[in-house]
């Protein structure tokens, strides 16, 4: 009992982390796309839990609101709309992408390991440093995020939003193009 109370945060962390990883494995192993999407949803919710654990309530809420409540629902919408039954068994695209996927995995792993070693991501108890602003006042979560986003990282933030806008416009243009063409031609066009 005493152990549970003393290590409460750690236990919750490991449970959430384990479930998040299991969800991630589920995404790639489930045969049925709806089940995959749902296990991705589970991962998102667990990550939101991890954010709460790190006192990043704003991020947690946004994670649930945007990823779980928005993006995943749209995934499900598309999967159900086109009535996807099962993935094609041969899955040609996987083999072509495999080397790149391994490379990307190694790179991301290296990045995380570097971060951990450098102490950048190391846990700091109490109020995270990000919440203390220039005048030393401890702000709420939302203010802290806003402060960082619109002061320190304003330029990257704006660049990212323009990139997203370009991606969105591009997607719409492609969508319109293939919709105006005959189905078979649209496919060949890609």
């Amino acid at each position, binding site marked *: 009992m005493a152990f549970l109370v003393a290590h409460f945060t750690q236990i919750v962390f490991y449970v959430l982390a384990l479930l998040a990883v299991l969800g991630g494995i589920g995404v790639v192993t489930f045969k049925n796309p709806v089940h995959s999407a749902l296990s991705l949803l589970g991962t998102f919710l667990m990550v939101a839990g991890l954010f709460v654990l790190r006192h990043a309530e704003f991020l947690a809420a946004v994670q649930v609101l945007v990823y779980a409540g928005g993006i995943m629902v749209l995934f499900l919408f598309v999967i159900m*709309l086109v009535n996807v*039954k*099962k993935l094609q068994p041969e899955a*040609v695209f996987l083999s072509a992408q495999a080397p790149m996927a391994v490379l990307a995995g190694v790179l991301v792993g290296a990045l995380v390991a570097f971060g951990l070693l450098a102490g950048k991501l190391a846990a700091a108890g109490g109020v995270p440093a990000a919440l203390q602003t220039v005048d030393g006042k401890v702000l709420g979560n939302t203010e802290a995020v806003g402060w960082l986003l619109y002061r320190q990282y304003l330029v990257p933030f704006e660049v990212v939003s323009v990139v997203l806008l370009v991606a969105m416009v591009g997607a719409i243009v492609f969508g319109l193009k293939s919709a105006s063409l005959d189905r078979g031609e649209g*496919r060949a066009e890609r």
Partner: protein
Amino acid sequence: MAGPLEPLFDVEEMELSFGPQHPATHGVLRVQLRLDGEKIMDAKPIIGYLHRGTEKLFERESFNQCIPHTDRLDYIAAPTNNEGFVLAAEKLLGITVPPRASYIRMILAELGRISSHVLWLATHAIDLGAITPFFYTFRERERILDLFEEYCGARLTLNAMRVGGLPYDLPDGWVERCSELIDSLPKYFDEYETLLTENRIWKKRTIGIGVISAEEAIDYGLTGPPLRGSGVRWDIRKVFPYDRYDEVEFEIPIGENGDTYDRYLVRMEEMRQSVRIIRQCLDRLPDGPVMAKVPKVLRAQEGIVYASVEAPKGELGYMFVTTAKSTQPYRCHIRPPSFINLQALPAMVEGHLVADLVAVIGTLDIVLGEIDR
């Protein structure tokens, strides 16, 4: 990558059996749909779930015994079914109906038209999500059915006409009660229109939906409001007047665009015109017998005869082929308006959404009783 990519997923169009048990198919209609998302790629009506062999039955029974079967064709509006049958039989047998009987038949037929149209409005509105008109229209329909009940004892399957006239004269006070009812009806029609006619959602759901041009409508053989909604002024009551329709004044409303909204307006106006006809009939209702002198056993001579009436749904016709001295037709064919109007359904819904299918089925105002016969 060169060459067309293989599709990543098994993507299929959805096949959907819309009916035969579905709240919006107005009976046991089944529509086999091929859907791309919610878009209708192909719609195929499948009928026959209510087939009772009515035409065959007519070959086995004497003319007056057939009349109860006609009630069950368009069971929403029985008077016009009776009327069409007795008109055809009278034409075959060369019987002239007394004027009083003709007028009472017209009153019953127009009351039947109103009761059919209010029921159409009720179901059409509820299909498009407006629930309240349903209860308003049923309030008035009940009062019309009360009048039927008072006249012949039945509310739905009236069996109210006979070859040569009518089985009964009107009961005492019926004319006054009918007069009172029809005076109050236009006020109620305004009430329905308040809820719907200028409602923006209603307009969005009906304007430009299920459009059919005048040429197409004629090619499909549409009759009744679906034809008039496309702007064709065609009404059996005017072009081939039967009973005493040539003695009363009324207008034939027509639409312009042939869409669901125009057909809605046409039917709303038809109800007002029906009230006008009933008013005139009541005012000049002649005295006299309601039954012509006809022999006990009706025997036809050899021939082919076709007679049709303007039923609420369109042209309802009966064709008899008879042999000499027969007491029943050798062959009977019924031309049910719903059956022919339904043929336009695939053309009217293609490319629309599932929700529009419901609107189009509603606007065609089909009754499966007469489609399947």
